[in-house]
């Protein structure tokens, strides 16, 4: 293998609405892999939490979606894309504590309105775009260096 050839590992997870059996599997797998690869524990934790919140938002709020992860030695890129209701007011959705989760979901312990704010807090780069009635997509980057 060449010295300066930079590896990339790509992962893809399909997500389904209200699939609470699979819920959390994708982010768990991402966490396991990052640990095995030897990323700093703080990088692993931030990436895993961001991935978890993105994963749960698709499962809770959208119809179906996909989590794509691209790992390189320098950064972890997480893209969450879904088909669903979308977010009409992104500014509002980003506020701590804002949620539209119904009672049923809140009884399961979700719906604190902290998911998106936490993603923004843990990510080094964060991008959200959404089209009401169509879907939402998130781009999250975690730098592997000291962060």
């Amino acid at each position, binding site marked *: *293998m060449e010295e300066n*050839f*930079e*590896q*990339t*590992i790509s992962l893809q997870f399909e997500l389904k609405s209200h699939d609470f059996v699979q819920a959390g599997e994708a*982010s*768990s797998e991402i*966490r396991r*892999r990052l*640990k*095995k*690869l*030897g*990323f700093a*524990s*703080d990088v692993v*934790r931030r990436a*895993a*939490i961001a991935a*978890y919140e993105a994963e749960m938002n698709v499962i809770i709020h959208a119809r179906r979606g996909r989590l794509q992860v691209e*790992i*390189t*030695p320098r950064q972890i890129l997480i893209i969450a894309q879904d088909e669903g209701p979308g977010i009409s007011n992104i500014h509002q959705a980003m506020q701590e504590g804002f949620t539209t989760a119904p009672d049923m979901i809140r009884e399961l312990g979700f719906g604190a309105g902290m998911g998106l704010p*936490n993603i923004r807090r843990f990510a080094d780069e964060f991008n959200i775009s959404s089209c009401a009635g169509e879907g939402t997509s998130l781009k999250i980057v975690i730098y*592997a260096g000291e962060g």
Partner: protein
Amino acid sequence: MISVRGYFHSVRLDREKCTGCVNCIKKCPTEAIRVRHGKAEINEQKCIDCGECIGACPRKAKYVEIDSLELLNSYKYTIALPPPSLYGQFPPSVTPGQILAALIDLGFDDVFEVAVGAEIVAAETRRLFRTGELKGPVISSNCPAVVRLIQVRFPELTKRILPLDPPSEVAGRIARQLKSRELGMAEEDIGVFYLTPCAAKVTSIKAPEGGLPSYIDGAFSIQQLFPLISRSLKNVQGRGRQQRASGLGVGFGIPGGEVKAVGRENSLIVEGIGNVDNALEELEMGHIEGIDYIEAKACNGGCVGGILNVVNGYVAQVRLERIVRELDQVHEPLEERWPNLAQLNFKVPRIRVEPRPMQPLDSDINGAMAKMVAAEGILRTLPGLDCGACGAPSCKALAEDIAQGKSNANSCIFILRERIMALGMKVYNLAGIGTRMEEQRGDKEEGEE
């Protein structure tokens, strides 16, 4: 007593007895065991001395390295440190006081209950929460297997471990200091011995992780002493010795006892190494909120479930719960029950547990990624049965071992069989047997027509 780095482990393998079966490799929570050349091998860096493999081994090939009772002869004065779980090993008619008397009868010069150490640690924990120095979630430092699990698998959480020396060490220090004062004897002349219910405690004595040396000189197992204690119980004929610990301290031996003693309402109680692993993952992911204290024990049922006990853990738990209920009547603070102790003005020593993260696939991330990609390719060629016959706990683990150059594909009996068959075909073709046989078969078929 200070440990040299280069991991000490109390869980050992008797190579003679090991038949190379796969029971232990599947039970290990850190996947630290491989069978190589027909014998189990434990990876020193990954092993947390939880003792799961000891229970899993049908041939009793795994054992705990404990001290020989002869060690008692090396000291002028000896003190036994009985943990709460010991009290649960005897029928309800036997009181803790009688057990302490029996320990003296069988040869120790004095006893000091670990439960007293537990009370002192609990009081200090309560104080630190009160002053605001401790903020939740704090994970108990009591179970050494849990402490090591955190170091290896959850390095980020080491800073959440209660920064106080655990009850056994506190008991050891106080016992030694009190006796040395009382007898005017040098501390080194006093031998302090822990009566252990588990492997993990032995490891924590020989190689403590909090940055402080151990104050305990050796460990004898409860199993080892049980017959001697039983005999001595007859000698003491029901006469007891003053027992000092209250129900709060003795309760450390059963689930929930610690939480009760530290007095935090919002607490989590987890037992069993697998459950602890799950709970810690939830904690690391930030899913456990509003929790002050986490009582986590590697053994099912807490320390009464330790592998070196004699009685079934659940039976011992019922017995210990009864003892705790009876002792709960004691309400005077420890200092009043034991004035000498107050004079000692003892401060619980602080510890700091450092992370000891699991080795990644390679020391460099790019290299590790190449190995992960390679392992995935290898995994696709393996049968996916996770049978363990290769000596690794799963096909995935074997694939990673191969990618790291620690094993090879022929370890998989299915791959080996395929390769031998392919080789057989080659030889067969090379020798021209194939063609001759085909001709023969052709003749025969013709003949049959």
